[in-house]
């Protein structure tokens, strides 16, 4: 457990703490809504908060993020509003996607969140094209695409890494290696057992990092973002992380992993770790942290109330938005 070797601004550290906490509280509440039958299951990101938080703390609002089936944390880290997110989960007209996309498809182009995607590996080429557009238009926007250890076995990743490398695209491929794809451990599915090692074949830096440390995530992504922003090309980051819950809905992860392993990661919880660091180094105090907690909780509660009070889409919505125009 190494933490922080570069200077991180205090405001950023506190921003990261608040984000991670907000994600966790949001996810906890979203799970409750699911338990109440208001949505039929979701892929929880609890445990993985540090990964997008460390990166997004350095992104600009017009930079792009694309995600996966498990993307609530990506969305929140990139600044999507909790209200419209929670409303989307409940299938409400006020949701980010007007209730049409749901938990696996949250998108908010105004925040640079160009969408979660339910097909494993499917968003990687899309993200490559988003980065291409920035390159062609000569903006300095950076694109970050998240995917899982399981997704690393999809050909789409390899095709995209190759394209991004030959075209020097401003993109960062972030593999959230949470050790499992559903019940399949990455040690079984990933030949060579390292996703980061795949980068070398594409002449691209490939870095493995402790994804349970927001500060480590910050550090490696700083380099990658700078590289991308300067037009020097893509980077592959493999963030070693862990999902605390089952794969989806009520999945019981103990059928395929051990309590010891779970505890190992929970003992290194990303939120606890940053909190200890902040306190130990007197960057803040418990009182202030309590305030952040209150603030985050209030935001989640307000989002939940908003979502529950919002109307469902009208039945005409079934037919709209299929095309921009269709005569």
């Amino acid at each position: 457990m190494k933490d922080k070797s570069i200077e991180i601004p205090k405001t950023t550290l506190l921003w990261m703490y608040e984000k991670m906490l907000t994600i966790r509280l949001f996810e906890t509440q979203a799970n409750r809504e699911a338990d109440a039958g208001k949505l039929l299951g979701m892929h929880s990101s609890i445990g993985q908060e540090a990964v997008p938080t460390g990166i997004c703390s350095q992104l600009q609002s017009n930079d792009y993020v694309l995600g996966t089936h498990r993307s609530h944390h990506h969305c929140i880290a990139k600044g999507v509003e909790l209200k419209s997110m929670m409303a989307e989960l409940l299938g409400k007209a006020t949701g980010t996607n007007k209730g049409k996309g749901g938990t696996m498809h949250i998108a908010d182009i105004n925040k640079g969140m160009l969408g979660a995607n339910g097909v494993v590996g499917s968003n990687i080429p899309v993200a490559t094209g988003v980065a291409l557009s920035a390159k062609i238009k000569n903006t300095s926007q950076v694109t970050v695409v998240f995917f899982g250890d399981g997704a690393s076995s999809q050909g789409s990743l390899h095709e995209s890494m190759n394209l991004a490398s030959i075209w020097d695209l401003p993109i960062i491929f972030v593999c959230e290696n949470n050790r499992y794809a559903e019940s399949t451990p990455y040690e079984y599915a990933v030949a060579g057992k390292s996703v980061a090692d795949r980068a070398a074949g594409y002449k691209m830096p490939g870095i493995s990092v402790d994804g349970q440390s927001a500060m480590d995530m910050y550090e490696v992504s700083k380099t990658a973002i700078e590289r991308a922003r300067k037009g020097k090309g893509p980077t592959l980051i493999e963030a070693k992380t862990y999902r605390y819950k089952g794969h989806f809905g009520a999945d019981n992860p103990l059928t395929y992993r051990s309590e010891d392993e779970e505890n190992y990661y929970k003992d290194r919880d990303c939120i606890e770790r940053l909190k200890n660091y902040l306190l130990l180094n007197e960057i803040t105090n418990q009182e202030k942290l309590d305030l952040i907690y209150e603030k985050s909780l209030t935001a989640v509660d307000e989002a939940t109330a908003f979502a529950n009070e919002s109307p469902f889409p009208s039945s005409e919505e079934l037919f709209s938005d299929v095309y921009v125009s269709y005569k």
Partner: protein
Amino acid sequence: MRKISYIQAINESLKYEMNNDENVIIMGEDVAGGGDRDEKLDAWGGPMRLTKGLVKEFGRNRVKDTPISEAGFVGAGVGAAAAGLRPVVDLMYVSFYGVCADQITNNAAKIHYMFGGKVKVPLTIMTAMGVGGNKAAQHSETLYSIFTHFPGLKCIVPSNPYNAKGLMTSAIRDDDPVILFNNRQLMGLKPEYDVPENSYVIEIGKANIEKYGTDITLIGIGYTTYLCLEAAKVLESMGFSIEVIDLISLSPMDEETIIKSVQKTKKVIIVDEDYPRCSISADISALISEQAFDYLDAPPRRLNPPHTPVPYSKPLEKLYAPDKETIIKNAQILLE
């Protein structure tokens, strides 16, 4: 007779065939579960639990967890079949066809023909389809129509645990590539169906007349057969005589059973959960009009979802696919 669930029916067929023929193997994501670790063997038994218990009985050599590489492992299924095995490959949801369509339609479907009939591809693909899970546009499609489009593939859709078991067995024993479409709602139903313990086959290419009647023919496919039967009960209680055809096999399709029924009843409704354009319901409607034109009292009616992706929001999803009420309403219009 004992009643078992759809999932158990498929599972029994797989088990029997693996015992019966050592060339039968299973591949797919989490079909064993837990990867390669002894202590976690059979952690999942498949995303829908269709393969539960099989890895314990037949070992990892024959029940293989795969990485998430559908093009890779569906293609591997094609190759293994061409080289003499009888692989059953699990494509978790049919929408994921998109990453392995090349292997299905360019290789599995064409090898026998392109190679002049000298190589066989006895591959079975099983895949889940259908709305009702609140899973939105990429996890709720039906799509059997596009596979029916391709010569060289056989497409079958069970409608209950009984024919699921028999069709799975036939698929595995068939020397051609077969896709078996499992509807998610059928997999979720309570076990109300009598299913023999022994092994049996149901012929691929035959439709089944679930109920004889004289006033109208309802044609169902998988879950919509179930809906047609439910609707028929109500319509019969109103005094109508309803014939219900369970299509079962989309390719080959039992044209004769359809035509004969319609010649008798003179009215037909086709209930299909797939998108409406270039669909199996359009295919059947065209067939009927072309071949039983003079018998029809009214044009065939198709009930499909609208020409839209599947929505997430529950109330929208409920409006999306044809349901029992829609069938009853449309039948009443035709019967008046």
